[in-house]
C-alpha cells in the first residue's frame, strides 16, 4: 500500500489513526450504548476516508447505513438488553 499515492496523504494521516482508535475503543468500552456511539463515529470516519479515495457511492452508503440507520438499530437493541457486557 502506498500511502503517499493517495490524493491527500496528510488527511489520511489524520483520519487513519482516528479510525484505529475508534475501532479499538468500540471493542474495549463495556457500556454497550457508548460502544454503539463510538461505532457510529467509526463509520463516519470511514465515510470520510472513502470520500477522500473518490469512492463517493460507497461513502454515501456508509454515511446513510453505517453512521445513520445501523447506529439507531444498535441503540434500540442495546437499550433492550443488559447495558454492561461481561468481557
Amino acid at each position: 500500500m502506498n500511502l503517499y499515492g493517495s490524493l491527500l496523504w496528510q488527511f489520511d494521516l489524520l483520519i487513519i489513526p482516528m479510525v484505529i482508535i475508534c475501532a479499538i475503543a468500540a471493542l474495549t468500552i463495556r457500556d454497550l450504548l457508548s460502544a454503539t456511539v463510538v461505532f457510529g463515529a467509526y463509520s463516519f470516519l470511514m465515510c470520510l476516508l472513502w470520500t477522500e479515495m473518490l469512492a463517493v457511492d460507497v461513502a454515501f452508503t456508509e454515511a446513510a447505513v453505517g453512521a445513520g440507520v445501523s447506529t439507531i438499530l444498535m441503540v434500540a437493541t442495546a437499550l433492550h438488553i443488559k447495558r454492561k457486557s461481561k468481557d
Partner: protein
Amino acid sequence: MKRLTLFLVVLLGAYLVWTTQDLPDWGDPASPANSYLSTHYIKKAYEETSVPNLVTAVLADYRGYDTMFETVVVFCAGLAVLTILRRTKRKHKKNVKFRPQREGVDIILQNAARLMIAPMQLFALYVIAHGHHSPGGGFQGGVILGASFILLALAYDLKSTLRRFKENTVLFYSGLGVLIYAGIGVISLVLGGNFLAYAAWGGLLGISEVEAHSYGMLGVEIGVAFTVMAIMFSLYLDLASGGDLDEGL
C-alpha cells in the same frame, strides 16, 4: 491461554499488514482490477447505457442479477427479524420484560424533527431519481427515506407513527420493491430480451435501446428503494419495541 491468543492475533495482524505490500497501488492503472473488464465499462458504459454514473451502470445494469439478489437478501433479513422478534397476541402471551422509559415530551426534538422530515424525504427522492447521474441510488435513497420515518417514531411515539404508516403497508412495500425489480426483468423477458436486459423495453416505451437502459435502471432503483425503505423501518419497529409494537424508544 489469553496470552497465546493475543500472540497469535498480533502475529496474524502483522502478517496481514506485511502482505499489503503485494497489493497494487491505489489507483494504479496497471493493477489486475483495472486492466481487464473495467476498461470496457469505463470506455463503453456511457455509449451503451447513456448513464454518466459508472457505479450505477455496473450495479443496476451489467450486474443486475447481483443487485436483485442483494435486494432479496435485505428483504429476507427483514422477514427473519420479523419472524423472530414480532410478538402477536396469538404467538406470545408474555410481555416485554424491560422497556426503556420515556420521560415527558421534548418540544425542541419534536419541532426539529418536524422541520427536518420533509426535506429529508425530498432529498431521498432526489437521491433515488438521480442515482444514475450522481452518487446515490436506490439503496441510499431508500435508507434515507426509512430514516425519516424512524426519526418521526423517535421524536413522537411509535403509535402515532404507525397510524400514518401501518405495519401492513410497510410489509406491502417491502414485497412490492422486490416485485418491481423482478417484474422489470420478467417483462424484458416477455418483450424478447434476456432477463433484466433493459434494451428490450425500447420498443414498448418508444425510445432508443440505449435510453431504455437508463429508464430500466431508474425503475430498478425505485424497486430497491421501496424494499430498503420498508425493511429499515420494519427493523426499527421490531427492535425498538421488543416486538409488540406497543411503544418505541
